[in-house]
């Protein structure tokens, strides 16, 4: 169980187009790709070595079958299914020249407002689509859909993050144009989404000056996995005790290559640099 957010079962989720009243249920259709497996009918050399600095004991050797037991060597990544699907998503984005940005943050960082302002800036120049992820409600998708861009809402139910399967289903119903931008607003949570690759081109983390400068130290996995950190609500700096340099230093101690931009989605300050950063990313995938 997710000890941080207390989320429970995530077997089904809902994908709704903004403005659509009938909910659509997304089922986890699991397809599996397997490598070879080791049954004990044949001798079989392994090329893996146990070089992980640990001792490793088996109650039986794989080819022993006394007392009616045997050991099946599996050695598979537990996140393999998500990672494979994430790579499929990534391949789709690459083939179509789509820049896909996964926006992650804690709740209340101003993610949706920032996305609204970003979409307004970009949509005159490029086609933009949005996937909104929240546990419940259509509120965010309705806000974004008012900007007249294709938007879907994925409700994760009791789940606390989006996964590659949800995004895969979601993007199929969006009909995303070639060479466009896709924003995925992940569930507001700095813990669980860190582990789940969606196939995005870049992961952008938003922290705001109303949060503590120690956030990077408290949630190192998320800070480690991001390419850009947007420090939002810059306009509130005179009113809060937030040392931007200390925040950067904390984040750099986790992720030495993390880039930073300071913005205020409300006043528009710094939004030009964010826009330039997105253009730069877009140029990179085009070449």
């Amino acid at each position, binding site marked *: *169980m*997710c*000890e*941080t957010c207390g*989320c*429970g*079962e*995530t*077997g089904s989720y809902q994908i709704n187009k903004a403005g659509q009243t009938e909910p659509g249920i997304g089922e986890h259709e*699991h397809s*599996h790709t*397997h490598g070879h*497996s080791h*049954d004990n009918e044949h001798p079989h050399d392994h090329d893996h070595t146990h070089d*992980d*600095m*640990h001792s*490793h004991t*088996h*109650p*039986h050797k794989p080819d022993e*079958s006394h007392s*009616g*037991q*045997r*050991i*099946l*060597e*599996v*050695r*598979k*990544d*537990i*996140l393999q*299914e*998500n990672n494979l699907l994430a790579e499929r998503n990534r391949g789709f984005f690459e083939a179509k020249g789509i820049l896909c940005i996964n926006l992650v943050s804690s709740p209340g960082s101003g993610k949706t407002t920032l996305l609204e302002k970003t979409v307004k800036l970009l949509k005159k120049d490029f086609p933009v689509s949005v996937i909104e992820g929240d546990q419940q409600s259509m509120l965010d998708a309705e806000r974004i859909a008012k900007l007249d861009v294709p938007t879907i809402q994925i409700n994760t139910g009791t*789940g*606390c*993050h989006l*996964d590659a399967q949800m995004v895969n289903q979601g993007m199929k119903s969006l009909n995303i144009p070639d060479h466009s931008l896709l924003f995925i607003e992940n569930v507001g949570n700095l*813990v*669980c989404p*860190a*582990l*789940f690759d969606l196939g995005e081109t870049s992961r952008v983390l938003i922290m705001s000056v109303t949060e503590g400068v120690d956030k990077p*130290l408290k949630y*190192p*996995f998320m800070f*480690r996995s991001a390419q850009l950190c947007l420090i939002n609500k810059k306009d509130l700096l005179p009113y809060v005790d937030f040392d931007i340099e200390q925040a950067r230093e904390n984040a*750099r*101690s*986790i*992720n*030495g290559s993390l880039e930073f931009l300071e913005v205020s989605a409300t006043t528009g300050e710094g939004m030009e640099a964010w826009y330039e950063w997105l253009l730069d990313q877009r140029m990179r995938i085009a070449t």
Partner: protein
Amino acid sequence: MHELNLAMAIVEMAEEEAKKNNAGSVQQIELEVGVLSGVDPDALELALSLAMKNTAIEQASVTMLHTEGQGRCNACDHTFTMTEVWTPCPLCNTPAGKILQGTELRLLSLTVDDL
């Protein structure tokens, strides 16, 4: 972290491997949970006990192997033990080294009864 999702994936993978290999009941599940994987072993164990209920692997015991974290310093190339993802290089104190080992999250093996 998201241990219940992981537990459900483990159960599904274990059931499928056992079935594919014509195995009887699964007695033991051996997992590798690296110390830098971002997974809380206690939470995963609890989640597994829930996820395994009423499945073909309900009676299996779970063992976890906690692979040590290792990193290489980006500045001086020193290889060192990382107990946390932010452990700096012990020689030159440079933070955020490259993680070489410790993020593993794998189903290693199943001990199964023959049919």
